[in-house]
């Protein structure tokens, strides 16, 4: 692990030169709801890296709780500061209008993590590009991973935070793939884990107790992994009894992979999406991306030359590589340029 840390730090300093000469007052923002969620840990790492790497100031703002209206409000008020660019989260459509106005005023916006309108082809209105996980594909990959690990037949229960847009798309991908490619698998039941570990334990226990024939569990919310493992522990079920495939990399989830309760977790390249978002906006501001020869004059032609969607495929963490993902193993980047 220390080796990886050194390598990452080296990379950052090694590349720094390219961006050091630019105006040092460039300020980028990440505006998002739900800042207190552990999911943001990866974003923060990515943004610290990006701040150092590009020598720019980055500020995270927005509500700590789940309040997308307040996110839109924070975005609109951030525009008043005339920042060099803003990363937004498209959890829902409430920030779109402000993004459109920002782009019209020359402030580049990149949408990461979630799209207001799910679906592979959908472009994000008012943003240069979307960078993030393809949730539908991630769902399909989850099923694929399950079949790869647990064989061609089985009975699986699914739990997630029903009612959230990304869960929706993941579930659709998961179900479709199983139906098309794994006739030996059936889904026995669904449970709602309400994005909350305590409720997630309850949900998993309901599945386990209700469906004795169940052989596997898939959990597609970040609380699912700890919930499923917690349920197994409380019910005295040994690790490995169920094939468990989950999503996201909560520290608890990673520990449970190491201890064998969870077979694998599929994660987004979260830190990367933030770094690339800053990269895109830096280059847009420098003129490089803006003037790509799609047309003779992109602005006049009214087109956005940047690719509409940049999809991450999911990264699979299992027993074999989990040590590279734990919090202790991650590089410890400190910077004054980012406020988190």
């Amino acid at each position, binding site marked *: 692990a220390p080796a990886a840390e050194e390598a990452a730090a080296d990379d950052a300093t090694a590349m720094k030169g390219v961006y050091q000469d630019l105006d040092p007052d460039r300020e980028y923002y990440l505006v998002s709801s739900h800042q207190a969620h552990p999911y943001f840990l990866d974003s923060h790492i990515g943004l610290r890296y990006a701040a150092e790497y590009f020598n720019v100031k980055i500020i995270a703002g927005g509500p700590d709780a789940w309040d997308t209206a307040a996110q839109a409000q924070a975005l609109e008020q951030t525009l008043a500061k005339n920042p060099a660019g803003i990363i937004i989260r498209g959890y829902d459509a409430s920030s779109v209008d402000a993004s459109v106005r920002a782009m019209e005023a020359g402030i580049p916006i990149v949408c990461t993590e979630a799209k207001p309108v799910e679906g592979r082809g959908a472009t994000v209105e008012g943003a240069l590009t979307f960078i993030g996980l393809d949730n539908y594909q991630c769902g399909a990959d989850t099923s694929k991973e399950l079949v790869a690990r647990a064989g061609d037949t089985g009975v699986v229960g699914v739990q997630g935070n029903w009612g959230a847009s990304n869960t929706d798309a993941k579930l659709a991908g998961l179900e479709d793939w199983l139906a098309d490619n794994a006739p030996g698998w059936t889904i026995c039941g669904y449970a709602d884990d309400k994005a909350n*570990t305590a409720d997630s334990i309850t949900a998993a226990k309901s599945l386990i*107790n209700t*469906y004795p024939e169940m052989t596997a569990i898939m959990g597609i919310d970040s609380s699912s992994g700890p919930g499923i493992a917690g349920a197994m522990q409380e019910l005295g079920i040994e690790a490995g009894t169920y094939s468990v495939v989950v999503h996201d990399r909560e520290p608890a989830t990673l520990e449970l992979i190491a201890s064998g309760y969870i077979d694998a977790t599929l994660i987004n390249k979260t830190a990367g999406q933030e770094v690339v978002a800053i990269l895109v906006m830096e280059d847009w501001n420098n003129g490089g991306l803006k003037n790509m020869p799609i047309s003779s004059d992109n602005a006049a032609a009214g087109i956005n030359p940047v690719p509409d969607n940049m999809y991450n495929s999911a990264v699979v963490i299992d027993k074999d590589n989990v040590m590279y993902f734990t919090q202790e193993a991650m590089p410890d980047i400190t910077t004054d340029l980012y406020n988190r």
Partner: protein
Amino acid sequence: MEQKSISTLNNKKKFNWTSLTIIILTLAVFGFLWATSDTFFTFANIHSLVYDTSFIFFGVIGFTYLMIMGEIDLSVGSMFAFSGMWLGMLCDWGLPFAPALIIAIASVIGIGAINGILVVRFRVPSMMITLGMMTALAGLSNLLSTNLYGYYYPDAYRAIVRPTISIGGEEVFVLIIIMIVIIAVLEFMLHKTTIFRKMYYVGENLDTAKIYGIKAAKIKFITFIISALTAGIGGILVGSRVAYAAPTIGIGYEFQMLTAAVLGGASLFGGKGSILRASIAIFFLQLIRNGMVIHNIDPLLSQIIVGIILIIAVYLDTRVNKATTV
């Protein structure tokens, strides 16, 4: 005036049928699930449901007491999140577990005292004061959870909820036994002890209680502390169960507890309520969730179902009560 002797008159205490509402509802759902599913009535499932009940149960104790007093504490949900994480934070700062626990409990008591003193001193609606406390504690919890990213609670903390004992060949969580003992003790105390009788008095009419020397303000103040304390204990137990700082813990618990307390017969006007029945109501809500998984009902419908049950139960209660009180 001709005076009938009191002893010749009907002085049997009339049985209050409405107190059975939630018990009948619970039995009905229980019976329905038992009849329609092979997997419902197994030791593991019932044990799980009861164990899940035991966490929010702690919160509902104080919450119900406050409702008996005619007050409400909306900060219980945030308190669930806060107390667990605050204890985690203290551990993270390197304190040994025992002093950390003591400090955490003391802080929780302090927060209850703030709610209590503001409501009692300034005679303002507890709903607004505790709404403020709920907001502030939610902010604090998020601050804590941000600082506790990636921190796993120490073993001593994690160990609180894990012990089991063997009863009839099955391993039962000690927490369940504790819950049952507490319910029994509290239900006994509620009917038989002076302090809880006084709570009912104060809940029904504070000014009257005062005239007869009952320290109404003090009792009310203490009840706010009890409410914060029991919610805080619940939060520490959930923290122990989950084992790391999760900021979504406790969100919406205030409404769940209100639903449970009201289904259990508490009134927003005070003077009524029972811990036993409120606990049964929590179990009832667990049954509903379990039933939805058993019968593969779209989880998105659960809110609608709970909303409708809440309204119908309270409607029936007001109807029946109106018919019997005159």
